[in-house]
């Protein structure tokens, strides 16, 4: 497979789709990954990358890309379905502690659109609130004075909510603490370095949360709440 330097990202994206269709899954996966590394993003790109990795047998990378796709499209049913299948093929089965329902809802809401969309919407809402407030304060005897007051309050609250959503989205997408284990087997220790007591053994494809970083080691939290130190090169951040 030869990729010409002059090809546009859209052409390469289409070429990866053709490779996938003809059964060259690892070729498609490397093309998709390259696009991702160059900074191109789309829900379908990440979803297709996950599929290509899954088909070429790399379940850990498949889970990684499905998780990334899920951050762009949390409500996409196909991504959820494929992620579930990929997860069923990995070794570790960890009972995860479920998130509180409002956190889950809030995150879902935050991921409905991009952080910048939320930010722009918040700004527009804030402007609307200001206009309504001016109306309320200046039109002394206008009939909709009361209405404009409540609308201004509502717009201000919405604007505030949207700012929170934009911040949350930015946190989830750009400052994600989650990582997927890529080594086929790795030991979690009680301290950074190779000397700490061995606490647990993880296999590729397991999703962990990075708590802190020290040198070449990261402290991770497992879905069931346990913590341990793992080598940084054995995981890839979502």
């Amino acid at each position, binding site marked *: 497979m030869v990729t010409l330097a002059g090809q546009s*990202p*859209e052409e390469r*994206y*289409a070429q990866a*789709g053709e490779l*996938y*269709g003809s059964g060259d899954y690892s070729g498609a996966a490397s093309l998709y990954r390259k*696009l991702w590394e160059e*900074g*191109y*993003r*789309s829900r*379908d*790109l990440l*979803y*297709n990358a996950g*599929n*290509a990795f*899954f*088909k070429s047998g790399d379940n850990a990378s498949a889970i990684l890309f499905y998780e990334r796709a899920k951050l762009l499209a949390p409500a996409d049913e*196909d991504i959820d*379905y*494929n992620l579930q*299948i*990929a997860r069923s093929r990995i070794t570790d089965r960890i009972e995860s502690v479920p998130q509180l329902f409002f956190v889950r809802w809030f995150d879902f809401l935050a991921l409905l659109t991009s*952080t*910048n969309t939320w*930010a*722009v919407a918040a*700004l527009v809402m*804030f*402007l609307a609130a*200001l*206009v309504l*407030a*001016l109306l309320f*304060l*200046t039109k*002394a005897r206008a009939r909709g004075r009361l209405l404009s007051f409540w609308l201004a309050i509502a717009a201000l609250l919405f604007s505030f909510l949207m*700012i929170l959503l*934009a*911040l949350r989205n*930015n946190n989830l*997408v*750009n400052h994600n603490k989650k990582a997927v284990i890529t080594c086929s087997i790795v030991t979690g220790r009680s301290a950074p370095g190779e000397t700490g007591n061995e606490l647990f053994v993880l296999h590729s494809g397991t999703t962990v949360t990075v708590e802190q970083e020290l040198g070449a080691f990261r402290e991770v939290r497992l879905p069931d709440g346990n913590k341990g130190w793992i080598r940084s090169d054995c995981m890839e951040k979502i």
Partner: protein
Amino acid sequence: MKRITTVLVFLLACLAAVAQEVTLTVDAPESAVAGERFRIIYTINSTDGQFTRPKFDPSFSVQGPQQSTNRNVQWINGDMKVVSSTTLIYYVTAGTPGTYTIPAAQFETKRVTVSSQEKQIVIYDGDSSQQATGRQQGQTSAAGDAPASGSEVSMRILLSDRDVYAGQPITGTLKLYTRINLSGIQELKLPDFKGFLKEDIETPPLRSLDNEVIDGVQYGTGVIQRFVLYPQIAGEIRIEPAEMTALVQERTTAARDPFFNDPFFDSFFSSVSTVPRKITTQPLTVRVRPLPEPRPADFHGAVGSFTIESSVSATDAKLNDAVTLTVTLKGSGNLNLAGEPVISFPQGIEKYDPKVTVRSSGISAGSKVFEYLLIPRNTGTFEIPPVSYSVFDPGQEKYVTLRTGGFTLNVTGTPGQEEGAAPVYIPGEDVKYIGQDIRFIRNGNGRLTTLSSPLVASLHYWLWFALALFIALLVLVIRKQQIRRNADKAGMRNRRAAKNARKRLSRATALLKSGKKEEVNAEVARALWGYLGDKLRIDQSDLTREKCYTALRERKADEEMITELDRILTATEYSQYAPVSEVESPAALCERAALLIGKLDNVLD
């Protein structure tokens, strides 16, 4: 007639014998063990003559000869050929070890005298002989299927191949070799053939021994057991020795009458005892090579050379009538271990596990028949896919994929008809999920967005909020000032309304005194309108009676006042067009207007 023929034959035989060249051969072992008996056999292709025995070494105790003559008459294409021979067997026992020479024997006919070759024989000591034979045995077992020439009774496992692929069948034979009389065999213990799957071949019980000459030594041989081995694991696999007890007949030569010092009488007069002797085979190793990887998905363990064919009992079937798909695997190889082919039958056809029959023809050859019973449960056309079955061919050293053709099955019939009174309830059928896989990729428009920096992380985004707030505050402040200014103007007018009105009224009074009666009314009207405009905050241009009345009523003024106002305004307007005498005096009007403004001023703030 018969007698004549016999005589004729005899005469002719004599003639033939005369004509033929006479040979004398000797057959003696090259080595023997001291104290053990061995045979020296002389064969002469003539019956007519005098045999002179050789001068055996004096340490040899010689018995015999056991003489037999043999005459064969053959007719080939009308020519008669007579072959006659005499065999003399001497039974010799050497007493002391050493190398001896058996001198030539002589045979003398009327015409010629022939002599045999001289033979060297090495007589071993009893113990060292066993070591020697043991060594010899080890060599021969490595070399091939020659038995241990030194021992009298031995047993060997003969394998058809000792370098095979896993699963490739090996034919094995357990063979007995003996140079002495046996009365039977006992306690055959075969090894457990670890790493192999063993399958016995039916072997007839050993009743008589065949004669076989190996390396010039005559053996009685017999096949004890035949079997087929299927190697299951790869590597150098060792086959442990087989064990058996042979019942050896041994003569006890004690108290022998010299008169009967002849082997011919041995069997009658010497006492024979049966001695059990344990014999074992040599351990063997077989090199089993693993099947090459990767194995095809449709490889189910068949190793050998095979062909496959399939047939179907009917291509047009009635609903719920059974159809049989027969797949036959034919050839030689490990048929018993060949797994069933995996056929993905179309949904809607009920499939049962295949009935497997193995028909063997010869050793590890034959055919294996897989019969799939299919019951179509839905009508329509079904494609029975071609069977693809991979086998490993050890001859070609690669996997060979065998294929059969597919079939099309037409199923006709009416559902539920065969049951007579069809039940009203038709059970629904759940959708069958027969596999699980991820969903396919999306090949929609490849609209890719580049990674953009988040706005919330940049300062200028937040500055926009501050700017918007600042502008809004600015607008608010300006607007408030404007409102305040406007409010001040109106308040001034309000406060000065009564004062202005009184000023106008006093001017009207002054006009009255100066005699300009016409202008008085207009001045009164102006005073009233001005007052109302200022007090009610209505522009002079918008001022009408109705607006004023409405505004007054809103401010809870008395109807009485409004009526009075109306009258005064009417009077002032009327007086402008009518003669002065007909209307009220302007002075009275002035007074009433002043009175009304005072009243209104109390009501209006």
